[in-house]
């Protein structure tokens, strides 16, 4: 046992030592001089406190990290093919990547949204947008697999998506690129004459199954709708969309779209919109789109749909209002109480905060309207303003809330996170970020009940943060502890793709609910083989169906005969009923198929066209057992 005086000396010594190496680098790294390492250290066998779901940006995927350790657990394939497990390649999942443009095996995924009940994260689903080819995905949090993808018609650049209402009644999806709606070849300069339009789409989420469907689209002026967040509690009925380029410039937007002092946050009453639809005020509109659904342990089904209900704002008074917001607003975030709508203007020198109550008070009073755009009243800036955070930083973008009365705003240009107080609008702390921070995420921070312990900043650039690895460096995220009065940087970590936005969920909400296997007796796959005795080969002309089983450490049937040009379908069922025992399946030199990773009790299908005569090995790719290397067999292809 140490005596108290000794303890003080030792502590002092450690503290000093911690500061010494940092002297040279100065303030930028001084925050690391604390015991940050021990606060992110998760000892072997211990578990992280939080799941972080990060979107993959241009990788089109979603990744799962543990916080505070920042260990990468999994990449969930969503919009991009994934050779590791055959997603997008095999007969079960390739339908998931179907669109009206054909098979699109990539996308640009920006925003992760969590399903909510009463404004709180409920741990059922995550939603992810596809910006490039407008789509919206639902990821099931039992299996951590993509279950559904819905294409959004009459839109281009599904950026302000998928933001959920308080009980996940709807997900919002709005146009980033306004285009002719319906699509047509028109001169590009007709954009400036109002020839281009945007749409706001209400995607209905079935309360029990999570199934997605398009409820309604609203045709809005042709601006760029950038981000969204929906209200909570008193603002439950509303969602707020930021927009830029209200100038409707069509070339050199850098200048053209930055002319006006203010653009808008669009306040949208979705309850009113539904009401107008039910009153028959929406009209039938075209638009082809697909809905891809991957039911548990069955092949995904892609359904072509056409037509939506379209609503014009002028036909539904009280549904939409524009709130002027300086300048080229990007972020629009609603605080945990539902009262404050915080704008983040890329070029603004203030952070404007609108008051929901004020908006409700003035929205229908003519003296508070400055003008009207295509049936949408424009409210006066001062009329809805709750306050402005003065000179917070350069390029404020996104704001998250800690539930304790503080807001954290990311600042892209000055590479920092500013902490400020709601109500007094004073900045209380500047935190450096390395570098060019976009979104922030606090555990539960966009819900009505933030968990408020960790904040991650998602950065675009990492110059000098890691060992150089050629021209392209990893993107990164930074972890801050915000549990005490002063936020502290704990660690930074490289990420997969661009960590554009994230949702973080306390581990206790999910960890006991995750699925461990597919029960074989519930396997409804049309090509399932539930025991080895049923393994068989069925020939239908030049098509061969191989009903195959995989179990430690063999496949059955194990010798397969085929003729050149025949199409072979390997329907492989993993007979294991043990957690964490998938089997892999790959054939040597299969040009159109990568690998299958078949979960216990699951059936998946590998399509292979018998090539020139020869003997081709197939084998298990997932190290399954002591005899994994023996889990290999042959296909003989004869002329």
């Amino acid at each position, binding site marked *: 046992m140490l005596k108290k005086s000794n303890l003080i000396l030792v502590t002092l010594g450690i503290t000093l030592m911690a500061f010494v190496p940092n002297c040279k680098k100065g303030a930028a790294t001084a925050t690391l001089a604390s015991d940050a390492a021990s606060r992110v250290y998760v000892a072997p066998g211990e578990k992280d406190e939080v799941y972080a779901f990060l979107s993959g940006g241009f990788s089109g995927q979603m990744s799962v990290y543990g916080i505070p350790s920042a260990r990468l657990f999994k990449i969930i394939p969503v919009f991009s093919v994934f050779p590791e497990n055959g997603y997008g390649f095999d007969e079960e999942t390739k339908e998931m990547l179907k669109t009206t443009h054909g098979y699109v095996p990539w996308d640009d995924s920006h925003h992760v949204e969590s399903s909510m009940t009463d404004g709180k994260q409920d741990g059922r689903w995550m939603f992810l947008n596809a910006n490039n080819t407008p789509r919206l995905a639902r990821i099931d949090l039992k299996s951590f697999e993509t279950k559904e993808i819905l294409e959004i018609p009459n839109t281009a650049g599904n950026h302000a998506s998928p933001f959920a209402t308080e009980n996940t009644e709807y997900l919002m999806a709005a146009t980033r690129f306004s285009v002719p709606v319906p699509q047509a070849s028109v001169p590009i300069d007709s954009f400036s004459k109002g020839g281009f339009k945007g749409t706001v789409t209400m995607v209905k989420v079935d309360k029990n199954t999570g199934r997605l469907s398009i409820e309604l689209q609203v045709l809005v002026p042709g601006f760029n709708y950038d981000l969204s967040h929906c209200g909570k509690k008193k603002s439950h009925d509303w969602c707020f969309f930021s927009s830029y380029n209200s100038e409707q410039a069509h070339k050199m937007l850098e200048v053209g779209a930055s002319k006006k002092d203010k653009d808008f946050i669009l306040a949208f009453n979705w309850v009113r919109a539904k009401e107008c639809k039910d009153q028959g005020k929406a009209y039938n509109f075209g638009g082809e789109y697909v809905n891809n659904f991957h039911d548990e342990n069955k092949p995904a089904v892609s359904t072509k749909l056409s037509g939506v209900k379209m609503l014009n704002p002028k036909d539904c008074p009280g549904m939409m209002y524009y709130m002027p917001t300086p300048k080229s607003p990007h972020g629009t975030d609603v605080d945990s109480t539902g009262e404050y709508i915080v704008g983040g203007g890329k070029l603004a020198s203030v952070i404007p905060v609108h008051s929901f109550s004020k908006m409700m008070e003035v929205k229908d009073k003519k003296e508070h309207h400055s003008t009207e755009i295509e049936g949408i009243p424009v409210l006066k800036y001062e009329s809805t303003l709750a306050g402005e955070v003065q000179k917070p930083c350069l390029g404020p973008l996104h704001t998250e809330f800690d539930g304790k009365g503080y807001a954290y705003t990311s600042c892209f240009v000055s590479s920092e996170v500013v902490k400020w107080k709601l109500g007094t609008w004073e900045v209380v702390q500047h935190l450096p970020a390395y570098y060019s921070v976009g979104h922030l995420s606090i555990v539960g921070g966009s819900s009505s009940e933030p968990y408020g312990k960790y904040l991650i900043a998602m950065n675009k650039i990492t110059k000098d943060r890691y060992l150089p690895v050629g021209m392209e460096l990893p993107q990164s995220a930074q972890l801050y502890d915000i549990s005490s009065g002063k936020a502290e940087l704990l660690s930074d970590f490289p990420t997969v793709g661009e960590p554009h936005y994230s949702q973080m969920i306390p581990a206790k909400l999910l960890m006991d609910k995750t699925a461990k*296997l597919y*029960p074989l007796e519930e396997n409804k796959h049309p090509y399932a083989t539930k025991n080895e005795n049923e393994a068989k080969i069925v020939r239908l002309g030049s098509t061969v169906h191989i009903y195959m089983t995989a*179990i*430690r*450490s063999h496949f059955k049937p194990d010798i397969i005969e085929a003729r050149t040009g025949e199409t072979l379908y390997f329907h492989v069922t993993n007979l294991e*009923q*043990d957690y964490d025992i998938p089997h892999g399946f790959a054939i040597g030199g299969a040009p159109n198929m990568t690998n299958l990773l078949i979960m216990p009790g699951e059936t998946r299908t590998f399509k292979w066209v018998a090539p020139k005569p020869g003997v081709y090995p197939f084998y298990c790719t997932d190290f399954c057992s*002591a*005899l994994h290397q023996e889990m290999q067999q042959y296909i003989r292809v004869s002329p």
Partner: protein
Amino acid sequence: MKTLLFQTLSKKNRLLILGVGLVLVLVYLIPIWSISISAPQYPEGLGMQIWINKITGATPYDLKNINLLNHYIGMQEIVSESIPELLFMPYVLGYLIFGAFITEIYPKVGMAILGIINLLLVGLVGLSDFWRWEYNYGHNLNPEAPIIVEGMAYQPPLLGCKEMLNITACSYPSYGGLILGLSLVALVYILWDENRRKKSNVV
């Protein structure tokens, strides 16, 4: 001795016997014995339960996974159908319960003694049969098994824990077994109590 055999059971002891008969009915509903195994790759453990009429896994998939593990060493698959004892064991238990109820009609100390003998017989025969099955499973291994360790047998312990390769197997009575044991204790108590009562009557 003879007087003790035909001594009528006290009201309390008759009730106790009735209790034993009723509690024995539970043995149909709960496992008698359980074997649990743990290994590095099974941090959560695997379990197997022996019931009066079947063998199951502790979870719906444990038995399957135990068999999967066992196949490496060439142990034959453990399935209820291969153990004929499980077919008549329910009747043996029924006989014991029947005996308890007959004792209510014919409440003599001799019946309690018969019960003790029956329970002891069932226990001894049961345990030795259990041991025999364990022995057979552990020793009669497929000579073509992937893993053959010279001189190694895989007989689980009758009672207690044992290490086999990287697996620790533990074997203990489960609730049903405890009930059978307690029934025996109850009958022995009755015998002791009746004996004491006889002596005090004499005095």
